[in-house]
């Protein structure tokens, strides 16, 4: 234990820049100018009314792991401790942290933290920042809970894990793996958060040279590591001029969108002629349903009996994605075709997403493209009576638990239809195709949906439920041929669109 103990201070966000500069100068012996860019970028995004609490020394699990596995093996002295800066939406004082009656207030006001580590030039380490700490947060994305003990009080924040790369033990590629596993590991019991040394150990079987200092990973290696950590990864690459076997841009973009709509963080590999970089896409900005102009989008034409339906993919309406980029502050907003829009460096100009990795639950055997195709084939085949010729289509996967809970409480479907669906056996995960139109979507309502077993890649054995104005059609693959397709004639009124995968920023500092 250090003789000097823990140093701490409360201060308003207006003093953040100076405080950090003084801190790195005094404790890490850095020129204070070296921190300008990183802190200023973050400061521009954060609310002006935030209050901060800094404490040093702070043991950050990720940096300490890098320290013992790499930095401590160098001749030059590297400091092993970090500082942690916690953020609060109102003024907090020392006395609040010593009086139990204030604990709830502190918890309500807590907006997460950043760590400052001795790794120039990227000094911002592991961070969990609530979207409520931002001036603007008009997005929907996936978050996980993080429990921290700040000044002796246990606090919880909903955020997405972020860290800048230290360029020696973790580059962008390792950071994305860490960030995705930190998310899954803290959210679901099936997975465990991992540390940089575990990534190196896991990839050592595939490596033919030393791994430290890191010189990056390929998208395929990222996919391999995530698979080894228990995820059922799928890899997609966009079509290039000299390779027509890959996914055409439109299909590639839509597939990415379906997974994002499913609340899955996606690792994307971006490139230009100078660099290759890895980012995590975790959500998208709000789609203004009142401003959707269908004539701007290209529909998929579907033949139903003697007429043609125009199927518009909802994901085509998404303009910007929410990105966890280790060169940028958390929740970087960028469009699909310009993921490095917010970079100043010429080296990052004109980057495009070349590949993406979808880290799925390992028993989701039907991937997004297959689910889409199956839904379209049933849309063509069933007598569904969806009104109009323009249909807006939203596709995502979700757990059947979430779906049933949402269906029962919030979707406002006819009671008989609700009961039929609730009493249907379902696998752990289902694909959900929701049908709506230009008018209904303004009220967040739909008039049809298809539910597909996500664990069944073979359509011959896929149990399918289709809800449409005509009622519910059930495909029972194991029933007698005479009863394979049952139609339950229930009048289906418009119902609320399922919206539980991606979360908005909430009031009172909580998502």
């Amino acid at each position, binding site marked *: 234990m250090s003789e000097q103990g823990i140093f701490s201070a409360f201060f308003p966000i207006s003093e953040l820049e100076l405080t950090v500069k003084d801190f790195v100068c005094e404790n890490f012996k850095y020129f204070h100018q070296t921190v300008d860019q990183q802190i200023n970028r973050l400061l521009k995004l954060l609310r002006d009314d935030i209050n901060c609490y800094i404490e040093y020394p702070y043991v950050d699990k990720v940096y300490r792991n890098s320290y013992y596995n790499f930095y401590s093996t160098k001749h030059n002295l590297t400091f092993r401790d970090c500082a942690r800066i916690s953020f609060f939406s109102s003024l907090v004082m020392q006395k609040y942290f010593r009086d139990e009656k204030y604990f709830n207030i502190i918890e309500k006001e807590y907006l997460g933290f950043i760590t400052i580590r001795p790794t120039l030039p990227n000094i911002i380490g592991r961070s969990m920042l609530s979207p409520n700490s931002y001036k603007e947060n008009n997005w929907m994305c996936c978050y996980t809970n993080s429990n921290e003990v700040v000044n002796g009080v246990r606090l919880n924040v909903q955020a997405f894990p972020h860290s800048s790369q230290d360029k020696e033990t973790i*580059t962008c590629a390792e950071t994305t793996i860490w960030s995705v596993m930190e998310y899954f590991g803290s959210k679901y019991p099936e997975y465990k958060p991992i540390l940089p040394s575990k990534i190196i150990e896991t990839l050592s079987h595939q490596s033919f040279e030393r791994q430290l200092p890191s010189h990056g990973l390929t998208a*395929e290696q990222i996919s391999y590591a995530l698979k080894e950590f228990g995820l059922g990864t799928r890899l997609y690459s966009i079509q290039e001029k000299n390779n027509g076997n890959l996914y055409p841009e439109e299909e590639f973009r839509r597939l990415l969108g379906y997974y994002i709509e499913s609340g899955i963080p996606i690792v994307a590999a971006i490139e230009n002629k100078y660099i290759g*970089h890895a980012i995590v896409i975790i959500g998208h900005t709000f789609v203004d349903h009142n401003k959707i102009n269908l004539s701007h989008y290209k529909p998929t034409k579907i033949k139903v009996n003697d007429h043609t339906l125009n199927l518009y993919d909802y994901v085509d309406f998404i303009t910007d994605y929410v990105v966890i980029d280790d060169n940028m502050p958390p929740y970087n907003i960028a469009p699909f075709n310009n993921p490095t829009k917010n970079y100043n460096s010429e080296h990052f100009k004109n980057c495009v997403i070349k590949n993406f990795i979808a880290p799925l639950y390992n028993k989701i055997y039907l991937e997004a493209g*297959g689910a889409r*195709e199956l839904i379209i084939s049933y849309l063509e085949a069933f007598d569904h009576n969806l009104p109009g010729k323009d249909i807006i289509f939203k596709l995502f996967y979700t757990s059947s638990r979430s779906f049933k809970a949402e269906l029962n409480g919030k979707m406002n479907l006819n009671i008989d239809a609700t009961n039929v669906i609730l*009493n249907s056996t379902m696998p752990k995960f289902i694909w959900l195709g929701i049908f709506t139109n230009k008018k209904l979507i303004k009220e967040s309502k739909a008039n049809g949906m298809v539910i597909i077993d996500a664990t069944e890649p073979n359509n011959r054995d896929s149990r399918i439920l289709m809800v449409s104005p005509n009622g519910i059609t059930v495909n029972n693959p194991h029933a007698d041929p005479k009863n394979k397709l049952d139609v*339950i*004639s229930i009048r289906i009124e418009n119902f609320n669109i399922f919206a539980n995968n991606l979360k908005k920023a909430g009031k009172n500092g909580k998502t």
Partner: protein
Amino acid sequence: MAKLKNETIEKLRAENKISSIKEDDSYSIFVSTTNRMEKYAREYNKKDKASHLAASKVLLTA
């Protein structure tokens, strides 16, 4: 002793609200869906293989 039942289905059956699509129609839906999915699977396998090759080319370091 409590008897297990699916009350909703029994009620809908009693109200004659459950019917089955004719076997021939059902079979033609099965065939068209299967054909479509087989075509999709062939394309998907090609793209899948090519995706892995493409994803192993560039080191992500920036």
